């Protein structure tokens, strides 16, 4: 792999992150936001793997494992929160949950 490939891969990973981020901001349904968060985490993961492959070390994959753990924890909590909100208040639109402000 050469430096140009790495640059393009990094651009693509930034694109993945930006896409997920767009989804997070644009979608109002909580499930869509969770999917977007997954994509936001996948972007940096690609960046780490690409960098690791370029530098020939294992650090990239190791960081990937950490990101994976983070994603798993995030999904578990996010879905649990979603279900709890559905049960308590029958909410699926993130914008209607504003009571924490008070």
């Amino acid at each position, binding site marked *: 792999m050469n430096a140009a490939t790495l640059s393009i891969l990094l651009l693509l990973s930034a694109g993945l992150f930006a896409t997920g981020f767009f989804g997070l*901001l644009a979608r109002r349904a909580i499930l869509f936001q969770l999917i977007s968060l997954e994509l936001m985490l996948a972007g940096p993961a690609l960046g780490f793997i690409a960098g690791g492959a370029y530098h020939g070390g294992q650090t990239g994959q190791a960081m990937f494992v950490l990101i994976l753990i983070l994603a798993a924890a995030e999904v578990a909590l996010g879905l649990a929160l979603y279900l709890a909100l559905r049960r308590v208040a029958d909410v699926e639109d993130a914008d209607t949950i504003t009571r924490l402000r*008070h």
Partner: protein
Amino acid sequence: MLSPYLLLLLVPSPPLAAFLMLGLDPFFLRRRAVQVLALLGGVAPFFVMLPLAAVCFGGECHGVVPVFTLAFGQSEVALALLLDPMSTLVGLTVAAVGAMVITYAIDYMSDAGVADLRRFFALMNLFLAAMLTMVLAGDTITFFFGWELMGLCSFFLIAYNTGLPQAVAAGRKAFIITRFADAFLLAGLLLLFLEANSVRLDVLIPAGATMTEDRHLVIALLLLAGALGKSAQVPFHTWLPSAMAGPTPVSALLHSATMVAAGAFMLARFSPIVMSEPLVQAIAAAFGVGTAAFGALSAIFQTDVKRLLAYSSISQIGFMVLAVGLGAPEVAIGHFVVHAMFKSLLFLAAGDITHGSDLGTSMKAMRGAARRRPVAYVAYVAGAASLAGVPFITAGWWSKEAVLSAAWNTGPFGIAIWALAFLTAICTAVYAFRPVLEALLPEPEHRSRAPHGHPLALNLHHRARIGSGFITVPLVVLATGSMLGGVMVAPIISFLGAEVPHAPHLPALLAAMAPFAGLIGAAALTFVPSLAAAVEGAHDMRRPTRLDHKFQIWVIEPYIRLIRWLSRDRRPRDADLDFERQVRLIRWLSRGARMDGVYQALVVRPFVNLVRWLSGHRGGGVDPVGSAPVALALRLTQAVVGPLAHDRFDRFWMRSANRLVRIWVMARAIQTGRSRDYALGLALGTAALLVIAWGTTWN
């Protein structure tokens, strides 16, 4: 393969484990179990530090234990623990004092409810773990983590008596002021990282010492500001005396070896960066000696033992900052070690004597101590002698003498500093011996609740001893250390790679006389009734600063008189109201000139208001931050265009006032409570950060 330095990981772990078990464990623990856990967590670090210190004193004293390393490009993020002479000495001191204080607290707090006990010991252990982490940190991230964690714990511990509004307020004050100063430290550390491309201290500090002029100055100033805030030096000193609202063991831990001393330790740690900048050095020396003098002077006039000791801490840490400013960080560490011992001893002994007294922690509660609590009284005398620096037989003399000699040897500028420090030493002896002599007075006949007593101690604790050993052993150990520790000062300083500074005979002799002069002064203040009454009545001196009183006399009163004269002269009749308003304004200003008030007004109040306003808090009165510009504009409108009635100017001003209202409403609308909007805010912040990073570093 396994290096002995791996033990370093075990130093902060036991208190951390104790915190987890006491603080997060959902199961019910019995009182005895809580005490055992707390004791284990508090004492274990000392026994882990001992073999490490033995290795270190044996000569092999540079060990790094990497915890997590991530290299990207030319920069690296490396979390590590570091064992070098400085961290060994300070770590050993902190572990020893922490062990003593927690042992003492087992007895002292034995009458608290189980839930409170768990909370207290969980936080004490977390606090100890944070301090040890900070001391042993090998990189700035771990260092800052420990530093901040300590700040957080101090907030919870100072506000331990959550039922008392003033305890909560004191905790909040300490938290906000130290956080304010921590921002400087964080900025300094981040700039250092950009400079050195590494967070490891052994890379960062040499790189920081050799960087270019202008950045160097900025970074050194930022670090200094951070240290002054944490160490409660003037002008950040106001949080420390109010922090005495916490229980005595908290004060003993926070204000001797940890928290406030952390700033001095940080300065010593980063001293290669601070010392290569003469201006910053001079500022540090000036602030140090100024704070030392101010603290000692204020301490003389305190009528509450704990507040006296609080000012004493401010003053003694001023000596450490002074030593760093004089280019002798090794001497500062020496004083740190000695101060940690005698100051915790003083707090513990005073706490033991006044514990459960109807008079709270006021000076009168010390009376009759020699009969009531002989061990504690003897320990207190030892600590006071060490604090005052009685020559040769106390540890305090050796370390203070080293600081004074370092000042004397710095040249003409240094002699001025020496003179001020010498006067401070006399004051130190005066306030150190005052409680000692007070204790010789007979106990007051009928004990009634003293109005000046510390309300926290008033009847909140009643003695329920579980074994006097828990109190006596720490006192005896610390007293021995405070007396005999003097022989360690010279080895400590040479161990850190410097020589003990020696002054000529004359200043040394003078300095040796200081404690005796102070003793005479203290005796005069205690036994001569008129002087004692004068101290009792000197309420002004007990205010956070004395300056505002002078300010009142010299500036404000003449001004008031001038206005009175002018207004009488010109407009005899309806000027009165106007005049009254001005007088009130000036009075208000003069009150605000107190540092405490200034902080309350500048930092604490706006912060609280900002939070309230941003969170859409709608209770109570109007919010001053939001309505101030509106009120200002309205006031301006009335004042400027009131006479001009309804013309174009009027309308213009009115419109601008209305526009301000609209801006205010818009600003309020930012806080929607919707997670997407906050994500948007995060995005904008990230974008700004990226632009800054792109502009500054990625070139």
